[in-house]
C-alpha cells in the first residue's frame, strides 16, 4: 500500500510518519498517512482526548496590499474585507456560473495581509483564479504553499496540550481566531480552527520546523492521550460533524445554496463578485436539490455515488456524496443530495447498496455536536 512508483510529494513529516508505522495513501498528489494503527481508535481519541494531524498538503495563498481585502471581496463569495485582524472566516470561491471552485478558510493576518487556505487538489485553480480576479486591484497574490507546514491538534485536550508549549494565552484565542506565537521554540501562526467537530488548533509553521513542532506536541500530548491521526479518521470525523468535503459534497456542479451554505454568500458587496449574477438567480429560483444527512439502522453503509431511491417506487431521486459507519454513533451515516421536498428530517428514503435497497431516514446535520 505504499504509493511509491508514483511521483507523490512527501510532506516534511513523511519520515516521522514512517517511523510511527503509518500506512500511506496517495491524496491530491501527496503521499499522506491514512492511519497509524486503527482509524477507529484514532477517531475516538480525537473525540475524547486529542489527535495530531499532518495537513502539510493544504495550500496557502497570501494576498497583500492596500486593496487585498477588496480583491478578496470580488474574488470570493464572502466579504473578507470585514474580517477583523487576527480572525478567520470559512468561504468559497465560485465560477461565473456559481459552481464551487473550492471551499476556503480566509485568515486576516494584518490590515493588508490575508492567508487563504485551499484544498490540496485545488491550489492551482484557486491561485490562478485569485491572480486573475485580483489583477484590477492594488493587491499581490503569492502561492506560499511551500513556505508553510501545517499541523493540527484536535480534540477536547488540545487547548491544554498547546498551552504547555507556548507563552500565548491559548484560552484567550477564540474559535476562528489566529495569532502569532512561539511554540516549542518555533515562530508559528496558531489558529483555533479545524475540521473535526472538536475544539482544536492548526499550527502553521516553517517546513524546517515541522518535525520539531510535531515532536513537541507529541511529547506534551502524551499524558493527555494524544495520538497521531491519519486521513481516514479525518474523513469520518468531518462526516460526523456534517462538514462538506470538496470533491464529495462540493464541486463545480454544486452551488453554495444546494450545499446548505447560503450563509457564506454576501450579495450586498459594493463592487460585486465573480458568480454574483448566477448565484442571485439561483437564490431567487431556489435550489432543486439539497444536502441532507441520512442514517440507517442496517449494518451496511451508504457510500459515495450510491443512488438514493424513493422507497415506494424504487426510482432514483438522489445521490450519496459521503458515507461510512460512524465510530461515534455506531451505525452508518451518510450525506446525500435529494430533491427539495424530500429533505425534511424524518423522511423515509432508501439507498441502493450494491443492488439491495436499504432503508434510511433523513436527519438534521450535523450527526455529532460536541458538548461545549
Amino acid at each position: 500500500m505504499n504509493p511509491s512508483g508514483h511521483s507523490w510529494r512527501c510532506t516534511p513529516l513523511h519520515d516521522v510518519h514512517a517511523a510511527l508505522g503509518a500506512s500511506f495513501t496517495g491524496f491530491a498528489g501527496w503521499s499522506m498517512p491514512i492511519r497509524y494503527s486503527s482509524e477507529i481508535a484514532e477517531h475516538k481519541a480525537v473525540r475524547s482526548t486529542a489527535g495530531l494531524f499532518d495537513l502539510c498538503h493544504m495550500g496557502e495563498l497570501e494576498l497583500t496590499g492596500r486593496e487585498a481585502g477588496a480583491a478578496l471581496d470580488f474574488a470570493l463569495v464572502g466579504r473578507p474585507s470585514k474580517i477583523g485582524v487576527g480572525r478567520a472566516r470559512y468561504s468559497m470561491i465560485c465560477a461565473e456560473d456559481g459552481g464551487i471552485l473550492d471551499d476556503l478558510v480566509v485568515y486576516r493576518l494584518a490590515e493588508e495581509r490575508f492567508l487563504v487556505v485551499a484544498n490540496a487538489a485545488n491550489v492551482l485553480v484557486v491561485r490562478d483564479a485569485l491572480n486573475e480576479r485580483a489583477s484590477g486591484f492594488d493587491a499581490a497574490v503569492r502561492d506560499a504553499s511551500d513556505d508553510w507546514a501545517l499541523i493540527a491538534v484536535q480534540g477536547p485536550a488540545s487547548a491544554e496540550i498547546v498551552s504547555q508549549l507556548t507563552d500565548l494565552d491559548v484560552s484567550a484565542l477564540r474559535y476562528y481566531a489566529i495569532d502569532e506565537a512561539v511554540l516549542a521554540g518555533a515562530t508559528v501562526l496558531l489558529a483555533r480552527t479545524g475540521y473535526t467537530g472538536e475544539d482544536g488548533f492548526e499550527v502553521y509553521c516553517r517546513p524546517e520546523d515541522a518535525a520539531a513542532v510535531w515532536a513537541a506536541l507529541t511529547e506534551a500530548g502524551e499524558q493527555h492521550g494524544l495520538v497521531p491521526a491519519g486521513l481516514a479518521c479525518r474523513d469520518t470525523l468531518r462526516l460526523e460533524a456534517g462538514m462538506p468535503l470538496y470533491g464529495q459534497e462540493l464541486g463545480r456542479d454544486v452551488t453554495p445554496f444546494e450545499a446548505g451554505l447560503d450563509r457564506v454568500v454576501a450579495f450586498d458587496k459594493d463592487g460585486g463578485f465573480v458568480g454574483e449574477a448566477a448565484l442571485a438567480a439561483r437564490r431567487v429560483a431556489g435550489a432543486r436539490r439539497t444536502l441532507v444527512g441520512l442514517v440507517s439502522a442496517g449494518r451496511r453503509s451508504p457510500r459515495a455515488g450510491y443512488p438514493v431511491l424513493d422507497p415506494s417506487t424504487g426510482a432514483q431521486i438522489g445521490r450519496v456524496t459521503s458515507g461510512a459507519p460512524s465510530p461515534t454513533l455506531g451505525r452508518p451515516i451518510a450525506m446525500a443530495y435529494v430533491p427539495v421536498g424530500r429533505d425534511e428530517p424524518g423522511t423515509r428514503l432508501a439507498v441502493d447498496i450494491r443492488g439491495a435497497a436499504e432503508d434510511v431516514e433523513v436527519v438534521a446535520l450535523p450527526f455529532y455536536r460536541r458538548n461545549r
Partner: protein
Amino acid sequence: MSVPAQLKFTAEHEWLDIEGDRATVGITAFAAEALGDVVYVDLPAVGSSVAAGEACGEIESTKSVSELYAPADGDVVEVNQAVVDDPGLLNLDPFGAGWLFRMRVTNSPALLDAAAYESLTGGE
C-alpha cells in the same frame, strides 16, 4: 510482513488452510491492513455452493467495501460467527481467530504458495 508457510493463497488476498477436501478460508494480513478497521463481514450461508473467483461475501471497513471471492469451487460447511459478531478479529488476527468460513473443496484452481504470495505483495 511474513505469511504462514503452510497456507495457500489467491491473488485476491484470500488464504486457504487445506486439509484433505476441507479448506479454512480467510483474508491475509496484507488485505486486512489495506482495508483498515473492518466493521462488517457478510459471509456465504452454510450449505451454499461457491465458485472459484466469484463473489461470495463482503468485507466493509470504515473506508471501503471489498468483495470476498471464493478461492475454490465447493460448498460452505461452516462460518465463523465470532468474526461476524466482532469483525475487528479480522484486523487483530487475520490468519487465526479472524478466519471466515470452511468449505468442502470440489475443484481448486492453481493457488499461490507463501513465497509466491509474498512476492505478489512486494514483500511488505
